[in-house]
């Protein structure tokens, strides 16, 4: 029940789905559609796990008054504001004020904060370029030169300095990079297929977690 059934589920679901690509049969086709539709719903449920996890961790922090507990209050409060306003406006599409409030929360809180968290990396990239990106070996020199030429090829101002920068940059991207990425893509496909088979046949059981 605890390990056998999950392994059987992986095998049966995976096998049925795969078979439908090779055998055109209406019953199998229906089974595939049904299983896939179920998958969409189960995935939606899985999203809630993150909320529950966050809620558990931060409510414990507040209850124990651990350091930074006030931040946890802000987190839970923000989460609930989004959830309450979002669900209310979903069930009341005619309420323009609720829709506008949700839109504002998205546009002026979630969206810019998310963008900032990712954009911040630009500063670290700049710092790393200066301090860590060194021609220590032949291969590092290849990497660095390619990076420089691609950046110059994509900067319109560099094109004004020498009109061959974009030609070189595009050649590196379209020929050498395509070659490398293609080799990696083929390798990943073979590796992905092998891993899929291992999971399907029960040799790889990492997804079941450890313990009994």
């Amino acid at each position: 029940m605890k390990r056998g059934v999950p392994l059987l589920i992986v095998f049966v679901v995976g096998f049925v789905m795969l078979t439908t690509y090779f055998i055109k049969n209406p019953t199998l086709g229906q089974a595939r559609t049904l299983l896939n539709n179920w998958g969409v719903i189960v995935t939606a449920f899985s999203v809630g796990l993150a909320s529950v996890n966050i809620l558990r961790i931060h409510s414990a922090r507040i209850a124990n008054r651990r350091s930074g507990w006030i931040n946890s209050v802000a987190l839970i409060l923000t989460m609930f504001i989004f959830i309450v306003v979002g669900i209310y406006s979903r069930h009341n599409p005619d309420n323009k004020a609720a829709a506008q409030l949700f839109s504002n929360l998205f546009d002026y809180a979630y969206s810019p904060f998310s963008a900032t968290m990712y954009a911040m990396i630009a500063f670290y990239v700049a710092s790393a370029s200066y301090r860590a990106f060194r021609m220590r070996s032949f291969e590092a020199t290849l990497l660095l030169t390619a990076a420089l030429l691609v950046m110059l090829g994509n900067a319109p101002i560099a094109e004004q300095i020498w009109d061959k920068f974009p030609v070189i940059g595009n050649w590196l991207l379209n020929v050498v990079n395509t070659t490398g990425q293609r080799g990696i893509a083929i390798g990943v496909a073979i590796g992905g297929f092998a891993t899929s088979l291992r999971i399907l046949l029960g040799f790889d059981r990492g997804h079941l977690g450890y313990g009994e």
Partner: protein
Amino acid sequence: MWLERLQNIDRRVIYTVLLIVLLGPMIKPIGIPLTINKTTYQMYNLIESLNPQSDIVMLAMDYSVAGAADVHPQAVAVAKHLANRGIKMVMVAFVPDGPMLAERVLNILGDRVTYGEDIVNLGYLSGGESAVKKFIDEPATTFPRDHRGNAISSLPIMSNIKTIHDFSLIVDFQTGSPGYQDFLRQLPAGGPLYAAGIVTVSVPNVMPYLDSGQFAALLPGLRGGAEYEVLIGEPGEGAARMDAQSLGHMVIVTFIIVGNVAYFFSKRQEKSGRR
């Protein structure tokens, strides 16, 4: 001594230089001419080749707010081009942020389109690749209502959609997964053409698919969006940021060169010191 100091410059100095270099041309644009790349022409010509009477385009809004600065200008420019040509658009999202970003595109399009007739924002479907597959299998019935809460049956544009083959082209604006891999794996043979508007970071990864013809066209990051804006004659936020983008590249290139020159000479000094 000065080489050592140059190598160990405070990181905050680097941050400040980068910020000033980027901010300058944003406040006062320089107007560096922008050359249009072949891939952008490819996308433009592809959309020009569509027939407004019979063709419907699916816009997959698969980019997150985190990467929107890179991809959103592309989505706006392509949507404007399609709207100007009178081609119908169905917007679908397989990432949660998609429908809200689609609403931003709709706000910019304004009177160019009539919602429900020329364009629709169907909303978000969870499930990653399974969701992509579900929509490809049943595009007419996957969403019972659109993002704004209208019943699908009340939207005239959706009466034209029965199967995925009713779309002539899919333009997938994306920052990650689900994205091109999911679509390429699930699209049936002989199905609609697939083109991608992709975040700059992922451009190298997708080049083999453009080369093999699995992509009908590709718009690469902010630069792709800026070039597209210029091509349709409506420079927007993409084009406005290209000067700063350009100087940003130059400053990073300078950082790398200066850092390496300092490294090279300090190494030499070290060697001669040992002798």
